[in-house]
Structure formats: C-alpha cells, structure tokens
C-alpha cells in the first residue's frame, strides 16, 4: 500500500498534475557565526518553529541543515543551528517547515543511544518510532496529579533509608566534580533490574556536555549488566554544539512523557543541568539577549522550572503513570549558594548533597545525610524500611555531635562511648561499592543488624565484611525470610524475630 501511494505521488509529480508550482515563504541568511544564523524574510515564521537552510538551487546530495527560530526581531529572525553549520553561507535560502521541533518517542527507543534529535548514534540501524512529540510540552495541571507515595528504589542504602525518593518526585543530586554523582545515578538504573518487569520504570539518561568516552563507558556498563533493555540514552556530548546541549533535556523529557502518559513509570536523569545552563547562556549571549546575574539570561530559572515541572505522578484518571526526575548539578568547591544550584534547589522536591570531605575520608557514596532532604519523606518508603530506618537520621546527627566532642574529651562515659561506636558502625554500614545496588530486603537486614546492636562488638574494619557474609549466609540458608520481606514489603514481628535469630546464628559462626 505504501508503494502504491509513492507511485501515485511520483506519477502526479512527473506529469505536473495537481502538484503544480507552490508558492512558499522563504528567507535568506544574512549572517552566520557561532551556531547562530540571522535570517531576512520569513514574514510569518513563529517562535520555536523549525526551519531548513540549504544552498539554492543546490544538489540532491546536499541535505538541508535544520535550525530553530529563537529570536523574532523587527527585520530579521535569529535561529540556532541544530546540525552541522559550517557549510551555511550568506545568501542561503531558508524554508519554513511549519512545525515545532519534535523527537521520535516509543518502545523502539529502548536500548538505543540517540542524539537530541532522535538520530541513532549506536550503529544499530534506524529507529522506527511509534510517534513523535514536541520537545516543549506543557506540564500536567494541578488536578491531573496525585501525591507521590510509591518508592523508587535506588539500591543505595543511605538514600533509601534516610532520603527516600518516590515515583514522580524531583530529587536533585548536587556536589563537586568527581565525587560520585554519575556513579549514584548509574547504580539507580542498575537497581531497577531487581524490580519485576511490570513495575520496572523505564530509565532515560540524558548526557549534557559529557565526554563521549564517559558516555560510552556508561553505556558499556549498562549493557554488560543487562540494564540497557529498559534504558534510553540521549547524548549531547562535549563535541556537539550548544544548541544540542540546550534541547537535550527537553527531548529526553518528551521520551519519558510518552511512557508516563501511557500509565507506566519512567525515571529521567539529567547529567548535568549546570552545563545545560551554560549552553543556554552561550546561545542567549549570541542572540544578544541582555545578560543578567553571572551573565545568564533573565529566564534561566524558567529554563529549568518548565523542564522539571513535567516530572510528575499523574492521577488515576490520567493513567496513574509517573516521571521521576533526578537532575544533577555540579558545584564549584561546594558552593551550593551559587546561582544555578539555588535555582534548581528551589524547584526540586529535595536534594542529595555529596561532599568532598566525606569522599576523601572514604565514606562512599559521599552523601551528607544531615543536610540532604527528601520532601516526600517516608511516604515513599516501604513499611519494612520505615521500621528499620526511622531513627537513622537522628542517630547519625547525635553521633556527629558526639564525634566532634570526643576529639577533645579524654574520658567518655559508657553511654556516650556506646553511642559513638554505634554511630561509627552505622556510617560503615552506609558505605557501598559502585555497581553494588542493594535490593530492599537486604538493606532491611543490614540496618536491622546495626540497630539491634549485633555489630557493636564487631571490629570497625570488619563491619562491611560481616555484612557481606551475613547476606550471603541468608541467601544460602534463609532465603525464605528475604523472600517474605521482598513480597510483603513489611517487617512483621514474627519475621523480625526469625531474622534476629538468623543473625545471631550467623554471628556465632562468624566469630569462630
């Protein structure tokens, strides 16, 4: 049928029937430089419309270069080039497409690495997408949302226990360079392997201005562990123009919204929004928009607020799907009061602070639980986790106060000493290796063991070994307990007693 349609079109075209010369609006390039094109003409072009720039008459081999209209001035329109702009020259003809910038969306994108225009980059062939959605879409209204109460398990003990994230939440990950922000989100993606397929969220990783080698490494690791089957990678690497950095998060968000609107859960990671703001600053300055604070344009807050508001949990009437956002912001020397970090902090539903001091002390992931916040809180925790993690933040806060005091005091009373020891073991339990996300039931076991004091007499440097061997022992000999916690997501009294007994038994063998 498609072939007949094409043959019919070709006949009409060659015979000149019904497809006679069509008049069309055009423009001419008057200046081009730094990825920005000034166009004269195009009297009816609209803001955010896609246009195509081509030599006239040109050759059939030359493909038109796409550009996005971002400035409408009295005599000219300013457009940002979305492709290879080196071949554009003054006098080239610009044609309207009549449509806004859209990206392909759908299941066909799962397992693929694409650029922000939806062009595949992984060499696995073209993508037959089910649909395409505009990259700029309105956020769901107030009545279309419901409250966040389903956990998104990250597999990181410190997060799931103390700073829980729910499906539909926006949780910022903020810290200096090389501190483990990307490692954190990578483990979150890997942890979704522990979720049953029906409830597993689709993961979208948007790389903005990252090194191509780093993106390749991340994709390789996800593929090796089998996580790529539910992941889409949108890559605007460091060598891509600022225009692609600018549209990348919106393109990824549209891909996530496709699944959200179909009643499924999706997780989107923006790595990172600091570079996204830089790209917008560069484009705005080249478009001669007035610079504001730190030379950012005046709408830099809106740049991120309109993006992050699209992450939501929809009401049952709208399908009940969700889009969870984990934006990443890089700080300079821990300065969280800078312009972009404070903007994004005020938009998101909480933040996870990663600190360099903790990192260099060996506390990895280097999460400062004391100042990290999740505004959703325990609504996004399973009952089992709530039972064992309820006191966690308080215990850690007390430990940190006492630990500072203990540096100066010679003799401590037994109760204070005990609290410090417990706090140290708690900090040790919260350490976790990269690529070792832990399912919920195992986290419950670890936290229960430390809360009940089973680790109080274990030497500090063997705490992690104890934890590792304990979990192996339970998987080998007491799998039913873990299975029960996994299925019920609760820690009933009888299960708790069984677990305590199992830990005691293991401890005796460990001591020998």
């Amino acid at each position, binding site marked *: 049928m498609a072939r007949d349609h094409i043959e019919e*079109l070709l006949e009409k*075209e060659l015979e000149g029937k019904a497809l*006679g*010369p*069509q008049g069309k609006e055009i423009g001419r390039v008057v200046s081009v430089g730094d990825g920005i094109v*000034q166009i*004269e003409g195009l009297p009816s072009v609209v803001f955010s419309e896609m246009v195509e720039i081509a030599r006239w*008459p040109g050759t*059939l081999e030359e493909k038109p270069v796409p550009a996005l209209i971002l400035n409408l001035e009295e005599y000219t329109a300013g457009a940002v080039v979305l492709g290879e702009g080196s071949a554009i020259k003054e006098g080239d003809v610009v044609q309207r497409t009549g449509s806004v910038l859209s990206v392909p969306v759908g299941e066909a994108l799962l397992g693929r690495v694409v650029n922000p225009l939806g062009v595949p980059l992984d060499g696995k062939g073209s993508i037959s997408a089910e649909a395409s959605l505009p990259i700029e879409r309105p956020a769901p209204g107030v009545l279309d949302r419901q409250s966040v109460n389903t956990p998104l398990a990250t597999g990181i003990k410190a997060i799931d226990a103390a700073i829980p994230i729910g499906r539909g939440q926006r949780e910022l990950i903020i810290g200096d360079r090389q501190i483990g922000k990307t490692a954190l989100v990578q483990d979150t993606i890997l942890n979704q392997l522990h979720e049953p397929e029906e409830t597993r969220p689709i993961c979208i990783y948007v790389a903005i201005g990252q090194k191509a080698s780093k993106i390749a490494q991340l994709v390789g690791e996800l593929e090796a562990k089998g996580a790529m089957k539910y992941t889409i990678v949108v890559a605007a690497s460091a060598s891509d123009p600022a225009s692609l950095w600018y549209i990348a998060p919106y393109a990824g968000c549209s891909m996530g919204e496709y699944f959200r609107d179909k009643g499924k859960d999706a997780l989107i990671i923006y790595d990172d929004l600091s570079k996204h703001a830089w790209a917008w600053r560069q484009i705005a300055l080249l478009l001669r928009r007035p610079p504001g604070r730190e030379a950012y344009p005046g709408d830099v807050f809106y740049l991120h607020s309109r993006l992050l508001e699209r992450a939501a949990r929809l009401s049952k009437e709208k399908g009940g799907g969700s889009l969870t956002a984990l934006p990443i912001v890089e700080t300079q020397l821990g300065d969280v009061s800078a312009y972009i970090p404070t903007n994004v902090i005020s938009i998101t539903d909480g933040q996870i602070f990663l600190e360099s001091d903790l990192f260099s002390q060996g506390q990895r992931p280097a999460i400062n639980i004391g100042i990290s916040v999740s505004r959703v809180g325990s609504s996004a925790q399973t009952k089992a986790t709530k039972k064992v993690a309820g006191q966690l933040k308080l215990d850690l806060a007390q430990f940190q106060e006492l630990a500072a005091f203990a540096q100066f005091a010679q003799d401590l009373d037994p109760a204070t000493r005990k609290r410090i020891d417990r706090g140290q073991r708690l900090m040790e339990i919260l350490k976790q290796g990269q690529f070792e996300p832990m399912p919920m039931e195992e986290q419950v076991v670890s936290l229960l063991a430390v809360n009940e004091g089973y680790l109080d007499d274990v030497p500090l440097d063997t705490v992690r070994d104890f934890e590792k061997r304990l979990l192996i022992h339970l998987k080998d000999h007491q799998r039913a307990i873990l299975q029960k916690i996994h299925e019920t997501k609760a820690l009933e009294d009888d299960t708790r007693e069984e677990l305590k007994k199992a830990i005691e038994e293991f401890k005796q063998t460990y001591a020998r």
Partner: protein
Amino acid sequence: MSKKTRRYANALLNAVQNASEKEAKDRIARFLLLLKKRGDYRMLGQVLYAFKSAWKKKDGEVALFVRARAVSGTPDRVLEHIIERKGYKVEELVNKELIGGLTVFLGTSYCIDNSVKGRLKHIQALLTL
C-alpha cells in the same frame, strides 16, 4: 542587521537619493563624520550593506526570474508584465543548475519554484518521509 544599522542606511538613502552628484558627495562626507562623532564608524560595513539593499528596493521590490537557459527570440513576457504591474522591478538570471523550468523570487520572502531541480527535490523529500 540591527535597527541602528538600518536607521543609518535609511537616513543616508534619504539624503542622497534625490541629490545631485556634488551634493551627494558632500552629504556622504558629512555622514562619515557623523558616524565617527557618534562612535559608530565600526558599523560602516554593515551600514553600507543595508544601504545597498535599501537602494535596490527604493524603486520597488525586486522580482528575480531565474531560468535554466536564456530565452531565445522575443517572448511574450506575460508573466513579467503581470509581476511589474504589482509594483515589482523585474530582473532576470540564468542558472543551469535548475536543469529546466523557472523559479521566481518575489523580494526576499517569497518564492515560486517550478524548476526541474525544485521538483526533483520535492520528490526526494516525499520519498524520505
């Protein structure tokens, strides 16, 4: 092209378009001094470019007829007359790259492409959809 550039270009156009040669030379010299005085001498290149466009348009927008080969004999020029009556100034150009047919550009913002190259590109766009 900024508003300021166009304003300078339009001012220069108004100053010289009905002036004699001697008057025009004086006015141009004073214009250059004005640019220097206002610190806008660096914009001279852009002003001249804008002036050139405005000069071309002063007698009406240009309608450019581009053909694949020169028309032999004395053709009727019916289409050209129609366009001229609409207030356009007709110019003609030959470009073999069109292969055949005719393309008409009305000013800088409208185009009617009936060339063979244009049709082939249209078919190519349909086939790649």
